[in-house]
C-alpha cells in the first residue's frame, strides 16, 4: 500500500485553502496542480513571472515565451498576470504567497529544509528555492519517505546544505503525513495500510504520536 505519487499530490491538494496563492516546486509538487478542485480560486504563482498559471497548452498553442519556473510551456488563466522577477520575488519574500509546496532531500525535526545540493554531488543551483522557503507563509514538503537507497529523509539534523532553517510546517511522504512541531515530528496521518512502525523505521528522528 502506501501513497502513490498521485495520491501524495491529491493529499497535498487538500492542504490548499480555497482562495489562496500557491507556488509549486519542481518535480512531485508539480503534480498537485491536477488535483486542485475547479472553482476553488486557487492561484498558482510561478516565480519566473506568472500569477494565475494554467495547465500545459493545447498542442499547437505553445509559446516559447510563456513558460513556468521549470521551463515547461504553460498557459495563463483568465485573471492571470505576468510581471518581472523583482515583482515576483516581492510576492514571495514579502509573505504574499500563502503556501509553497516543495520537494526535499532532507527535513530536520526542527523544520530545517535541505533541497538544493548534496555534499560532493553535482550542484544544480539554488534558483528560487531559498526565497520560497524563507518567504512563503507556509511550507509543505512532498517527498518519498526514504531515498532510493533507503536512507531516511526525515532526520534529527540535516547533513546536506540547508535551503532554509526552521521553515517546514508539514511533510507528506508515501507513508504518512507528518507535522513539524516545537517538540519535533508528529504523526498526523498514516497512508492506507501503513503502520506507525514502518513510518518510524524510515526515519532518523523521533516521531510523536
Amino acid at each position: 500500500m502506501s501513497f502513490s505519487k498521485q495520491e501524495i499530490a491529491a493529499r497535498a491538494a487538500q492542504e490548499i485553502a480555497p482562495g489562496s496563492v500557491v507556488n509549486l516546486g519542481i518535480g512531485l509538487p508539480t503534480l498537485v496542480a491536477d488535483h486542485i478542485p475547479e472553482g476553488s480560486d486557487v492561484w498558482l504563482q510561478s516565480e519566473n513571472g506568472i500569477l494565475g498559471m494554467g495547465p500545459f497548452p493545447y498542442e499547437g498553442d505553445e509559446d516559447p515565451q510563456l513558460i513556468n519556473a521549470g521551463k515547461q510551456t504553460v498557459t495563463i488563466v483568465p485573471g492571470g498576470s505576468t510581471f518581472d522577477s523583482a515583482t515576483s520575488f516581492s510576492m514571495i519574500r514579502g509573505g504574499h504567497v500563502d503556501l509553497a509546496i516543495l520537494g526535499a532531500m532532507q527535513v530536520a525535526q526542527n523544520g530545517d529544509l535541505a533541497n538544493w545540493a548534496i555534499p560532493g554531488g553535482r550542484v544544480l543551483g539554488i534558483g528560487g528555492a531559498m526565497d520560497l522557503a524563507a518567504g512563503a507563509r507556509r511550507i509543505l514538503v512532498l517527498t518519498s519517505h526514504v531515498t532510493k537507497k533507503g536512507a531516511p529523509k526525515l532526520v534529527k539534523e540535516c547533513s546536506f546544505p540547508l535551503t532554509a532553517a526552521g521553515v517546514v510546517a508539514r511533510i507528506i511522504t508515501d507513508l504518512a503525513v507528518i507535522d513539524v512541531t516545537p517538540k519535533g515530528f508528529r504523526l498526523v496521518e498514516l497512508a492506507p495500510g501503513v503502520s506507525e512502525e514502518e513510518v518510524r523505521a524510515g526515519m532518523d528522528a523521533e516521531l510523536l504520536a
Partner: protein
Amino acid sequence: MTEVKNEGRHRRKLRASVTEALEGLSDGARIMVGGFGLCGNAEALIKGVLDAGVKDVTLISNNSGNLEKGLAAWLKADIVRRVICTYVGNNEDLHRKMAGKSVEVEIIPQGTFVERMRAAGAGIPAFYTPTGVGTVVAEGKEHRDFDGVTHILEHALRADFALIRAHQVDAFGNLRFWRTARNFSPAMATAAKTTVVEADEVVPMGAIDPDDVHLPGIFVHRVVEVREHEDPYEYKRTRPRPGEAALDATGGAR
C-alpha cells in the same frame, strides 16, 4: 485528521458597499491612503472611514489632503492622531493641527517614503539610502559608507489598511491605474495587511491582458466599484488652442 482550513484571502473580493469594504477597521489603525495630493484619491473610501467612526488613526499619505478636500476631512473631524507624509504645502488643515500640536506629523523624503513601503511589501526590513544624509532626516539614524559615499539606514513602513483608487479592476483584484493617479498606490497595496480598492470600473476576468496588469491581485484583498468621482483639480493650468489665441486677438468668434 485533516485540519479544517480557513478560506484564503483571494476569494470573494468584490464588496457591495464601502461599509463592507472597510469592515474590521478599528480605532488606532495605521492607514495608508494613495494619491498625490488629490490626484488618485479613493474618495468614497476616505469618506467611508469617517462614516465608520474610527479615531486615533495614523494616516500615511503623501499630502493628507489639500484645499479642504480629500483627507482634509479626516483632520477636520479629528480622527487623526499622527500623520506620516512628505509634503504639507498649503494644506491649511494640517498646518492648523501641527501648530496646535493635536496631530503629530512626521515629514520624510518622498523617495524614502515610497521605498520604505515598497520594502515592507517585498520582505526587506531595512535598506540604505543616500537621501537625507547631512540633513535633519538623518538624525539618530545609522550612518554607513558604501564605496566612499555615506548612506543612512531606513526601515520598512507597514500599515493595517491601504485604501487606494484604481481605474479598472477584475474580481481577483488585478488593477490598472490611469496616468499619474498611480503614484504611491501600488507600493501601499503591497505594504498593508488589508488592501481595499475603490475602482472606477469592474471588468470581467481576463479583460485585462496579463501583460497589462499594473498591480497583480495578490496585493489586493477587497474591491468596491465606485463609478462617480469628483476628481477635483488642485491647480488647473491650460493654454489656449493655437487657433483660438489668434481669433481672440482679431476680435474673432470668442
